[in-house]
């Protein structure tokens, strides 16, 4: 499965709810829209994301981090950046579930 998270983890339970449903090793996580704030260095979700990236691939959507002024070097390590075409490819590979 591809877990698409589109709400800010600071104001919504979307990330936490999704984490309960992520199959370790198999599933992939994609942060889009305000969901990308979870992957910012120095934020409150650093620990949670670090744990997540140990067993699962975590992607951030390029257009959404750029719009919000988050530079590549402000993202946590092991977070991968993809564009909309990469997004499409992830949906080809995995069945999507959106958490908002």
């Amino acid at each position, binding site marked *: 499965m591809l877990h698409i998270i589109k709400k800010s983890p600071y104001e919504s339970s979307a990330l936490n709810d999704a984490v309960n449903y992520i199959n370790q090793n198999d599933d992939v996580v994609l942060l889009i829209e305000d969901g990308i704030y979870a992957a910012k260095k120095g934020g409150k979700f650093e620990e949670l994301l670090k744990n997540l990236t140990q067993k699962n691939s975590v992607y951030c959507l390029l257009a959404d981090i750029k719009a919000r002024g988050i530079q590549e070097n402000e993202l946590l390590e092991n977070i991968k950046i993809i564009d909309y075409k990469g997004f499409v490819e992830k949906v080809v590979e995995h069945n999507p579930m959106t958490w*908002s």
Partner: protein
Amino acid sequence: MKFGVLIKDGQYTHQAMDSAYNFIVAAMELGHEIKGVFFYNEGVCNTCGTMEPPRDERNIRNLLLGLNEKGIRLIACVAAGKRRGLVAQTVSSAAEISGLGQLLELCIESDRLITF
């Protein structure tokens, strides 16, 4: 691959329509097929034909017309639409109004159903 798209949030207020639009354009560029876009909940408002956004902003009505010209079916749920004032007189020429059965058809006919 065949994609179905479900949009649940209203235009401009949420980013859902914008994310979906960019996803659809990328999918078509990669040679995939969009079986249809279904608008439900507040999402039906995206198909309103009377939007007049400021000129220096993207025009979601025009974006939908563009998708429709590329042959993509845009379907607004009749019941969700009526509740919110989307009726035959106000729906965009880019979209059609139909029932929830169309959403299930999308689930059946698409390889993937993605929700925005």
